[in-house]
């Protein structure tokens, strides 16, 4: 029995169990499995109740975005990019738009910067709310999931009011945002934040002070701090290992340098700490949204005039634009050859490392019943692996 606060560093080398010996049970977790995030699968080799080896299999959601984007005009790609990561499409929109603006030399008006920041923080909150439901659900606590997904829905209502879209917003476009703030929208934002904050207090009480949740999550999936660079771990997973990295601070994009927020780090680096850290970031998001609403410029243009998008040619060049999404570093690498279509667009999703390399190593030695919880605690999302 592993004691609390005693970390077992997972083995990095792969065990080679002799499958013909009859000692091991090979089974697939996924793709048809409620205990897996999204549509991917794990091939687990179990010795009794303990996983000894794991292979991840991805590609069930491969749509070939990067190829499709090479076939479409710069502007036509906008409906496509948001579909790469469904729970938080705005980060895709922002990264792509910012890359285009950088290549084409477009500056964004002040108001659009604030609206973009608002949109990104709102989707961060929504995505975390969905995640906390998944984390509680993976340990069998359905009540939390029922509450938090509803709270996420209230955020989506705000998006609907702002952009007309519920899941896919296509709100952040090159040169600014697609529309101005509707009347009374900022008041609705503040009201919703009040409701969500109240609900988060409930969730904290029921989930984080729960003895059974602690028993399951404490000590599960310990990430050693030296893995952060070795495996390219970013976001809350890295911060909970005590590595103070947040692109919002490091890159200082959009309005983040003007906002007042602290970097939250941990040190115990297990599933429980990661969950606590994300809860703290949710509170931080609510705080940031309130700051943004208070400091948002009242008027001014929200969009720069662009050339005819159907004949828009972007000067040759390449760039890499990253943003801090809920799971870590989300980046777009865009290459233009001077034509009206991209030469190459590559997406860097944080799940690429978290769900494949890190997951395969962390899962060794873990009880089968904890695999789902471990996977959710890394906050992975398969479509950004396979695009």
């Amino acid at each position, binding site marked *: 029995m592993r004691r609390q606060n005693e970390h077992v560093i997972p083995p990095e080398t792969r065990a080679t169990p002799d499958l013909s010996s009859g000692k091991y049970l090979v089974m697939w977790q996924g*793709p*048809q*499995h*409620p205990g897996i995030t*999204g*549509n991917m699968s794990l091939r687990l080799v179990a010795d009794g109740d303990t996983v000894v080896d794991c292979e991840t299999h991805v*590609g*069930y*959601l*491969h*749509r*070939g975005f990067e*190829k*499709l984007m090479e*076939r479409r005009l710069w502007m036509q790609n906008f*409906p*496509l990019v948001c*579909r790469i990561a*469904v*729970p938080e499409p705005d980060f895709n929109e922002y990264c792509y738009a910012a890359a285009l603006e950088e290549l084409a030399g477009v500056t964004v008006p002040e108001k659009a910067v604030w609206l973009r920041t608002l949109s990104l923080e709102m989707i961060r909150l929504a995505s975390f709310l*969905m995640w906390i*439901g998944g984390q509680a659900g993976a340990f069998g606590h359905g009540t939390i*999931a*029922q*509450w938090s*997904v*509803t709270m*996420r*829905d209230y955020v989506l209502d705000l998006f609907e009011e702002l952009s007309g879209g*519920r*899941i*896919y917003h296509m709100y952040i476009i090159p040169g600014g945002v697609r529309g101005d703030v509707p009347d009374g929208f900022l008041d609705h934002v503040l009201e919703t934040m009040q409701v969500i904050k109240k609900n988060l207090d409930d969730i904290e009480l029921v989930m984080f002070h729960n003895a059974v949740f602690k028993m399951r999550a404490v000590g599960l999936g310990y990430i050693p701090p030296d893995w952060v660079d070795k495996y390219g771990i970013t976001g809350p997973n890295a911060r909970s290992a005590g590595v103070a990295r947040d692109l919002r601070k490091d890159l200082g994009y959009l309005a983040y340098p003007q906002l007042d927020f602290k970097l939250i780090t941990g040190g115990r680096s297990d599933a429980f700490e990661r969950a606590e850290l994300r809860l703290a970031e949710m509170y931080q998001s609510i705080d940031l949204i309130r700051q943004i609403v208070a400091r948002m410029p009242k008027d001014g243009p929200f969009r720069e005039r662009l050339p005819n998008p159907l004949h828009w040619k972007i000067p040759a060049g390449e760039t890499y634009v990253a943003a801090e999404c809920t799971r870590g570093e989300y980046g777009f690498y865009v290459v233009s050859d001077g034509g009206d279509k991209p030469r190459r667009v590559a997406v860097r999703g944080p799940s690429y490392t978290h769900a494949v390399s890190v997951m395969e190593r962390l899962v060794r030695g873990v009880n089968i019943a904890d695999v789902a919880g471990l996977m959710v605690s890394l906050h992975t999302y398969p*479509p950004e692996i396979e695009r």
Partner: protein
Amino acid sequence: MSDKKIIPAPLANEGLPPDERGLFCDAAPREYEPARGIMEDFANWARSESLWILGFGTGCGAIELRPLMTSRFDMYRYGIQPRPTPRQSSVFVIGGYASVKTLKRIVRSYEQMMGPKFVVALGSCTINGGMYWDSYNTIKRIDQYIPVDVYITGCMPRPEALLAGFQELKKIIRAGRAEGQNEYARNFEWFKANQKKVIKDWNMPDYNW
């Protein structure tokens, strides 16, 4: 239920190793005659009021199933609930585009479901390819590969649209028109040919139930 005593044609199950062939059935599916009169109406009513969704998020449409399951939209009110295993579920929700790799799993899961089984396809991409009309890895029409009862359009369909779609499915079931299982059995060879044309790496039994 009354069964027609027809011996189905044997399947080839090529591509399987010889020792695995014995694990799977060698018979093609057959049609089941519905019961007559009020018995079938009653059975259909029960089927329509107890729709168990297979817990398989095949695409991005699955993200709207979460709000549907939870307290805002609460599909339990309508007797709809998720089930984790294909053996026990009666509705297969195709959540949007299906890549070839997923289609293989869709076919397998669909065949493992017990009849009568219903398919609800979400999103424009299941109807005609939608956004991914020129993608090399997604199929364009799901009804080429498995029979579909209800399409719900949109990208992606809202939870309200999903609820409306499920109500429509209930109407179809009650009218006795949701005979996807029999359709699959009747056109088995056509469906199989379509599936095999797309799924190049066919290393599974032809029909597994």
